[in-house]
């Protein structure tokens, strides 16, 4: 069955906006560069919109988008002279399948992350903001904070591991 919403543009916008975090995460799993993932998300929106007439709305929108995202990420990888992570095609295929399976629970993980972020110290949130919002490379944060690159990296690593543990604990809690 094809998508037969009265206002396809509105329907697409609503669904794409809701699916964006999961699709961006999926792309990131395969290209390993936030700018590239961001860039590909733009291409993905264009492709999905062009094919939206063929979308069967009984199917998950995210699952439908992952098919396109996978192709885009593979095309991107083939175009690169040098990849952030030099994986063979078989490993990329495995990663793609495993990442696709995880997309089902993406919203739960995102909710857990938001909760876990509130438990970080001001200083930890500030360093994350510099790294992810200001997009400062580790080297720049180190220079600005008069720390070594290694010290800043260790701080980021500690925050990552703390957040991963917190997310796992939150998801494992029976009250959820």
């Amino acid at each position, binding site marked *: 069955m094809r998508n037969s919403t009265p206002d396809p*543009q509105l329907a697409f*916008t609503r669904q*794409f*906006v809701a699916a*964006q975090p999961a699709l*961006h*995460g999926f792309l*990131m799993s395969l290209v*390993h*560069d*936030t*700018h*590239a993932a*961001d860039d590909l*998300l*733009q291409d993905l*929106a*264009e492709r999905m*919109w062009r094919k939206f007439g063929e979308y069967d709305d009984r199917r998950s929108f995210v699952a439908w988008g992952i098919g396109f995202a996978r192709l885009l990420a593979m095309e991107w990888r083939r*175009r*690169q*002279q*040098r*990849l*952030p992570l*030099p*994986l*063979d095609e078989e490993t990329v295929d495995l*990663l793609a399948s*495993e*990442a696709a399976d*995880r997309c089902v629970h993406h919203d739960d993980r*995102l909710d857990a*992350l*938001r909760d876990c*972020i509130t438990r970080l110290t*001001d200083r930890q*949130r*500030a360093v*994350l903001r*510099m*790294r*992810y*919002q200001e*997009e*400062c*490379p*580790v*080297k*720049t944060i180190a*220079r*600005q904070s008069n720390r070594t690159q290694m010290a800043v*990296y260790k701080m*980021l*690593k500690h925050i*990552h*591991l703390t*957040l*991963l*543990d917190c997310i796992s604990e939150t998801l494992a809690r029976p009250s959820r």
Partner: protein
Amino acid sequence: MTESAHSPLDELALRTLHGIADEAEREALARLLARSVESRGRFLDHAGLHAMLAREAKAGTLADDTSAFFHRLEDSPARKPGRLLRLWLPAAAAFAAACLLAVAVLPTRASAALDRVIGAISETRDRTYRIEVVEPAPPHEPSRPDRGRFPPANHLDDATLWLRGPREFILSQSLPNGETRRIGSDGNVSWSMRGTGPVRVSPDAERFGRAIFARNGEVAFLDLRTQLEDLKRLYQVERLDRGSGDTWTLVGKRRSNDQGGPREIELWFHSGTGLLERMILRHLPRENGGPRSIAIVLQSTEPLPSDFFSHQSHHEPGRTILPEP
């Protein structure tokens, strides 16, 4: 924390995702991922968290005041200078003295001239610049498409940059597939579109320009105001000459390799109005890939339509709009 169970993989994954892994580390990670499903699972945890943090940061979920970070660091006990540092201190003092001397003899007219150019950039006058790659990446050095090049540096040649004051801009690039990509901001929202695809719109006025307008001197080659303020603050002005007619030229050399930014900046500007006519940025930071040197050349100061910097002026009315968080 589960650090001990995944320690080698955590280390390699995080170093790769934060862009500080070397070739051997990236290859070691690739081998681990090819080998076991557990490794891939853990790597996907990291990559997923990295992606979520990037999006959440843009949505404003994180702390909104980085000054807390610096204040805490300033409050923390000062690290004892090591032997090497102690040896370097006299040399650093001598260097600082030399810099001060240079500043003292720097003609105040150079400083005044720069102030005039910065003032002109901040005016709400419309300017159209063309970007030219003066010196591409050396052929033996593969471009670095894997790191921080947004927009792709290899498509910068012949791009057009429209500016109105310090906050409104549009960068238009022709892509190899014939499509045009435009990134812009009207000062209130930023937007990005490619070809006939949907338009992404963010309430963050710097969202799509952030990597272009990167602060901290890493890739700030299109943010003219920041670049000029850096020129005044961090560069040694070596030459200020009268060129032809009312045009003056100014050449600044970066004082330190640690500060980031292009190694040399050369400006041509109108002596009366401070209007920037041409700027060449030489020896751009290579870690971001792309060309070694670029020029930004004034094409026109003709006024643009008042709504030119809004995305609606660059697509047909029915185009799909995708709001960003």
